[in-house]
């Protein structure tokens, strides 16, 4: 019993350490890729190819003054970024990151908690993460913040239905909510990937995932050109940084979910070992988010609601119905 507790604590600490570092690295990668797609160089001067820019940004964020506006609701203003960052890491607890491996004769499952409702847990944790922007925008006594939190509510109500309904069809096929079971259902190579059986569900899930992590084309929460910085207008220093660590950790989580549910997870892929395969898949989905940000314009809040409620949700329901009919016949 003690061994399990110690193992879980070590895993949790590792997940927080590795994924907050990866989230920081994600900002660097994003700046580099956006730069190349716009014929720029991006960060170049701190370290080789500017890779130490993350350290410079970290030092800047940590040493910056933490300003709390005069009329803000201090307590909520202070805890809102923590909600975003914490829920992003809590969601990662149910994600199996690598296949099992053995170190010194001790088998390690690289998942913090293999609960039988993994997908539900991840979706729930990520959804509660949106309380961060919602409360931050309302607590900061700023008009842009209020608009940002109103848009958060819109976003929240729009994508959540689509995420749930789009994942329902693969869940019906596999018959489990655990991501490990999903992985085990696709052991037979590329032909058994669920994306071939559920292409519509995959597209819906990716669209909803972009909305969930508030990436372009759905970054209506803090779109600079329209509402300054939305919910993050009054934030500075590490509190602002926590919002961003949360956002990038969410992007990694969504990439993991897409890889695990639809693209064979950490099964061996041809000659590639499982660990490398899932790294490649997650990197691709992370890159896709940056790629889309460089390519597509973002849409208005009313267009987002229209898209989610009137287009994606009916398609998702039809997909669930057709999947059910095919399974019964």
């Amino acid at each position: 019993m003690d061994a399990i507790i110690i193992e879980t604590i070590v895993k949790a600490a590792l997940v927080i350490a590795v994924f907050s570092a990866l989230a920081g690295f994600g900002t660097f990668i994003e700046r580099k890729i956006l730069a190349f797609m716009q014929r720029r160089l991006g960060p170049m001067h701190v370290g080789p190819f500017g890779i130490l820019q993350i350290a410079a940004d970290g030092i800047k964020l940590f040493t910056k003054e933490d300003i709390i506006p005069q009329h803000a609701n201090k307590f909520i203003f202070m805890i809102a970024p923590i909600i975003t960052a914490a829920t992003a890491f809590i969601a990662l607890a149910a994600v199996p990151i690598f296949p099992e491996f053995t170190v010194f004769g001790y088998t390690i499952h690289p998942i913090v908690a293999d609960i039988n409702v993994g997908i539900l847990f991840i979706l729930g944790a990520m959804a509660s993460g949106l309380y961060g922007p919602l409360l931050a925008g309302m607590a900061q006594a700023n008009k842009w913040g209020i608009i940002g939190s109103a848009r958060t509510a819109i976003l929240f109500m729009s994508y959540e239905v689509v995420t749930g309904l789009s994942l329902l069809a693969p869940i019906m096929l596999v018959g489990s909510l655990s991501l490990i079971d999903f992985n085990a259902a696709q052991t037979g190579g590329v032909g058994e990937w669920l994306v071939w059986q559920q292409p519509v569900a995959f597209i819906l899930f990716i669209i909803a995932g972009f909305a969930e992590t508030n990436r372009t084309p759905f970054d209506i929460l803090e779109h600079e050109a329209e509402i300054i910085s939305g919910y993050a207008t009054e934030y500075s220093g590490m509190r602002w940084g926590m919002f961003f660590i949360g956002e990038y950790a969410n992007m990694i989580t969504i990439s993991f979910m897409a890889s695990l549910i639809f693209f064979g997870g950490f099964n061996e892929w041809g000659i590639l070992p499982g660990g490398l395969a899932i790294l490649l898949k997650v990197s691709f989905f992370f890159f896709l988010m940056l790629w889309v940000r460089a390519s597509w314009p973002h849409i208005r809040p009313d267009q987002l609601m229209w898209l989610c409620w009137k287009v994606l949700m009916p398609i998702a329901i039809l997909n669930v119905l057709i999947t059910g009919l095919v399974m019964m016949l």
Partner: protein
Amino acid sequence: MSLNKFKDRNVGVQNYTLIEHEAFPQTGGEKFARVLKRTIKGELFVGLWVTMRTMILALFNGEIHTVKYPFEKLPISPRYRAIHDMLRLLESGHYRCIGCGLCEKICIADCIKMDTKYDENQRKEVTEYTINFGRCIFCGYCAEVCPELAIVHGGRYETASQQRASFSIFDDMLTPIDALKEQKEYPGFGAVSPNADDNIKKTPLAY
């Protein structure tokens, strides 16, 4: 453009071309049809390909437009009017300025100050020559008027300094004597045009 057209201030349709676009969808069904059309036509993937192509060209073909400014500089036009240069005669190395005072006279910002005296050869010697760059408007009249091509506009456009004396002393603007070989004939503002010989006409003497 004729004067009549120019005076017509009734701005309307005369010179404008209306861009054709398809009718906006009115009903929900039409909107849905447009979404379907745009989904199937793959316009979104065209956008993705454009950025991917740019990235590939940037990474593997070097098509990056960033200029790392303090380390590399873009060439400027020879007609650019930056901080002045004082040129030397190529044969003797003596400065070209003959102390005629035309630049001081023509300077509309009144920023050139020069003093001259006769040296032992009864040749004008410049004892003092400064340009007050706090006043100079870089109009180029001094370079234009100079009969000897002695004062020209050079290429030093980075003019941030703690004091303007860093630029305005005659010896600073003068070509260093050891760099005489690198001194280029100035092609820019105030220089003789390449076809100057063709433009020379005989002064009519008889009226």
